């Protein structure tokens, strides 16, 4: 077969040229490491949920969007179950949907338009109720 028209054909035909062969390569070809395992621990300013399959807290983590509200309550309970337990994941997916509802309500509270609409609807309902009460 002629592969001359294909850029670089066979450049990595030699498996030793492939960067992930062998799959587990020791020692790693990584420059610049000046710490040992485990690295210094990050100080947490927010609540971080930990998998029960971690025997100790990993030293570094993200701090985006801590658990909050009803969805956070569900997430905390989800993390009582291991990753091996289907309930863990189903509860997290359910919490995600609850979080969306909470997010929509939160956005609504912050939106001037939504607040105005809510005020108009409320005033209309009160007026209708008062009119129905009058003889």
């Amino acid at each position, binding site marked *: 077969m002629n592969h001359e028209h294909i850029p670089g054909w066979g450049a990595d*035909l030699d498996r030793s040229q492939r*960067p*992930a062969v062998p799959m587990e390569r020791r020692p790693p070809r990584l420059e610049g490491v000046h710490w040992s395992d485990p690295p210094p621990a990050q100080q947490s300013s927010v609540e971080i949920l930990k998998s029960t399959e971690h025997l100790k807290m990993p030293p570094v983590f993200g701090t985006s969007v801590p658990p909050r509200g009803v969805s956070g309550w569900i997430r905390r309970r989800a993390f009582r179950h291991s990753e091996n337990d289907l309930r863990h994941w189903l509860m997290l997916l359910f919490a*995600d949907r609850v979080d969306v509802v909470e997010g929509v309500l939160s956005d609504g509270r912050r939106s001037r338009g939504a607040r105005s609409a809510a005020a108009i609807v409320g005033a209309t309902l009160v007026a209708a109720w008062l009119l129905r009460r009058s003889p």
Partner: protein
Amino acid sequence: MLATTYRRPYRVSARHVPDPVIEHPFDAIVRVLRSCICGSDLHLYHGLVPDTRVGSIFGHEFVGEVVDVGSGVRNLKVGDRVLVPFNIFCGTCYFCQRELYSNCHNVNPEATAVGGIYGYSHTTGGYDGGQAEYVRVPFADIGPTVIPPDIHIEDAVLLTDVVPTGYQAAEMGDIRENDTVVVFGAGPIGLLAARSAWLMGAGRVIVVDHVDYRLDFARRFAHCETVDFRSVGDMAIHIKKMTDGLGADVCIDAVGCEASGSVMQRVTGVTMKLQAGAATVLHWAINSVRKGGNVSIVGVYGPTFNAVPIGNAINKGLTLRMNQASVKRHLPRLIEHIQAGRLNPREIITHRVPLEEVSDAYEMFSGKKDQCIKTVLIPPGADVAASTTAAPITTP
């Protein structure tokens, strides 16, 4: 700063949020110059990844300029232009000591089955992502790579995920000279997997998809044969007819959990979520590969379970390999390939969009509109900052 924040399934918006800060002595803060929307971001966008919290900042493919470093950072300085692998890794744990950086055990409290990834839910560590103006980069001494001066910024941003993942997909297939390689999926990862298969000496490369413009693009970009799965009755039979009845030597899943092609899989995997996504491509790959062949999986699936024909895999004596790409270990060789002209990843970029219009960009990419293959996001002011190598902004 402006950032892409998740609001609800099928809805993200560019919103102003607080700037990131140094949280650990080994952190850096990077001003983003370019970021991309990845196909796997669509799984988040569609609400399929557990623990995706409203307000999370998406984005795991980005390059930028270092603007601040923690007290313990020695190898990186303010002003360096870096490409940042999508994996967050410590460099010293059991797995990093084996160059399995995507499996790092020290960076994700929320799960043990996956390491840390920028902007990809709390299941991957709860890190904010790079579809923003600024991002916190942990382990800045080992994660980021300074962009060589002869590497285009758009090639650099594709080196953070797309190119290494496509390359590793081919590498895990253990391709030998003149092997027949079938790549399922003509998205960015599938395209780079096909190109990488040629680098490893494949004899035939066949890309399978159902989107016409992507199949056209695959033929041009990856010099491959293509199959539109809508036009074939049974995928396994079709591949066997193309390979003297034996099946392909290597099959690569570059699609993942939202595959089309089977109504039953879509209903049970995507609509009803009775399994962790549609396992259509896993079926096709296992049943289309030859006995003793290799199946390589880089498509993303959820953390629960999928119904796959594991009995066929056993009886055929298959080797199944899969992982998130360990980007850092691939970079030196992939940079060489780009410098030598053997790979030209930025040709897959079809859209360059201001970050302010990210909502429209997601809608376009998700809907495969406007012949979209790959979208690059440009934060406010970053076009000027990167002007020596920047391509003009094109909006959808």
